């Protein structure tokens, strides 16, 4: 479960003074559901997710992940999430297995549990063939699988995906999308950010349209269509943004 209340992030910049990257954002993500943050580049999606992953501190407002406050219990929050984004890269000189094991150890897994879990994940994701290959020698698809394995190794109840298909080809994107669906089916709380309308349509149970750091509208795809009278999600998005000025 993820819950945010009036979550705000202000960056101070010498040239542009104050930037409200996320402005009083409130939402709730339930277990077994995919919550989508849909917005254009620079809308505040990454900042919002980074606050949930405790990489950034909120300027005001609160957020809790699996019952832990992001400001007061950041380590407990990080222990209960799997965070995947295009910015979370792999250690080039480690093998796929070493990479996943390293993060398993950092999450406090015992050696026995770690071995058993790594073996299971590598089999499920069809990674056994390249488990001992260095990450810099892997293809983009293989790398994405290692990243997925890294987020899963500690079996977190909450998954945070920040534009996970950005820059990936259609086949690798399909793997990621299937993985997100699988997480939902296994009862995990999933929050997913994207600027690709089609992906949001396919995956999200609830969509929040975010623009200039603020949530402009939130609901299921059907509710958003009914509210705006548009069918295509792109049209829905534009109508909402124009209506809110």
């Amino acid at each position, binding site marked *: 479960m993820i819950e945010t209340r009036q979550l705000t992030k202000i960056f101070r910049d010498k040239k542009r003074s104050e930037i409200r990257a996320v402005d009083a954002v409130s939402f709730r993500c339930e277990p077994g559901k995919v919550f989508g943050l849909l917005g254009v580049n620079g809308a505040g999606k990454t900042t919002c997710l980074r606050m949930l992953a405790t*990489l950034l501190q909120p300027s005001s407002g609160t957020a809790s992940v699996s019952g832990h406050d992001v400001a007061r219990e950041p380590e*407990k929050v*990080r222990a209960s999430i799997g965070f995947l984004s295009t910015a*979370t*890269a792999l250690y080039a000189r*480690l093998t796929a297995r*070493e990479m996943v094991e*390293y993060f398993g150890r*950092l999450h406090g897994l015992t050696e026995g549990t770690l071995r058993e879990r790594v073996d299971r994940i590598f089999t499920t994701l069809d990674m056994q063939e390249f488990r001992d290959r260095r990450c810099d020698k892997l293809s983009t698809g293989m790398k994405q699988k290692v990243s997925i394995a890294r987020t899963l190794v500690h079996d977190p109840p909450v998954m945070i995906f920040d534009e996970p298909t950005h820059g990936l080809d259609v086949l690798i994107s399909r793997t990621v999308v299937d993985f997100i669906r699988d997480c939902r089916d296994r009862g995990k709380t999933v929050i997913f950010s994207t600027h690709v309308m089609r992906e949001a349509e396919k995956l999200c149970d609830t969509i929040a349209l975010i623009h200039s750091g603020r949530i402009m509208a939130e609901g299921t795809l059907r509710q958003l269509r009914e509210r705006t009278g548009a069918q295509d999600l792109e049209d829905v998005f534009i109508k909402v943004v124009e209506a809110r000025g």
Partner: protein
Amino acid sequence: MSVRNIFIVYRKELRDLLRDRRTIISMIVVPMLVMPLLMTGMGGAAIKIVSKASQEIPRVMVLGGEDSPKTLAALRGMNTIQIAPTRADYTNQIAEKIIRAAVEIPRGFDAALQNGERTAVRIYIYEGEIRSSFGASALERFFRDLRERTVRERLASRNVPEQLIHPLDIQQTNVAPPKKVSGNLIGSIIPYIIILMCLTGAIYPAVDITAGEKERGTMETLLCSPVARTHLVLGKCLMVLTASAVTTLLSLCSTGISFALAKKMASGTPGVGGLPLTMDPLSLAAVFVLLLPLAVFFSATMLTIGLFSRTSKEANSYMQPLLILTIIPAVASILPGVDLNWRLALIPVLNVSLVSKEILSGTFHWNYIALIFASACVYAVVALTAAVALFKRESILFRT
């Protein structure tokens, strides 16, 4: 404090680093090669040059002296010099190293000596050129002998005892043991080189695991783990310290081996066999212990700079002034007259450099050693605290 987490980070960083060819070069190959190359390569070459120059019979020119056949004949009879034909462009010949030196004998030189008058000869040399100085030395020896012989003859002709003008002799005897002599001569340059190795050993790994990680995007991956930021910094710092300590240790070992080799080379070479090259393993070990807190200080400082930087390139540009800031106190310790005192004992780098110089010459000032070790530890803790504080600042970690 989770020691387990610190060691998980440390082990991974070390494994990652040891797979990097550039690290192996900066951490192992460079320290193992620098001192042997300096000592056996450059030192060996210098020994050979000096030895060859000392064995050569220098070509010298005699200017004038046509009316002094006695001196001229004596010069021609010397087997330590070759007389070149007289030419007007003798200065060019010296500058172009065709001849090594020239001596100008004034008109009426023999007669002046005969008549008890005062006269002078002038020797022309190429200053700083070793072969020229050997040529000049041979000429100078000849004229010094001539002067002493003339003085003796003049005194004898007047029945004056020699003691009248030589009332006393001055003799110098070295009482310092060879280790101290060696320490004084070479002990100042060794800490300088080792301190530099200690610093350079930390630079590459520190930049790689901070600014390098930011650039490659693995920093964000790491920050998603539940490990406390302090443990991440300590694990990383421990790895940089290992790299710095290994570089320093290898430098010390190769220094010891190089001295042994240089001593062996020098012992069989004419002209340089008497060089006091002695390096005590216990002194080297003591220097290593003193360098450890300095290595922590360097590691944490490098880590702080790396964390502050957005890219490896930016980090490397910050390292250049730091390198100069380290070289200045290290060089200051080599300067003559800069000796250890209570004030200098508190200046980082300079203090370790000065006390290492003393230790290598066999002098252990325990009060200074304790103060320097303690102050180096304080500086190390301050630098480490700064690195931890910086690692907790999101404006630094996500600087764009």
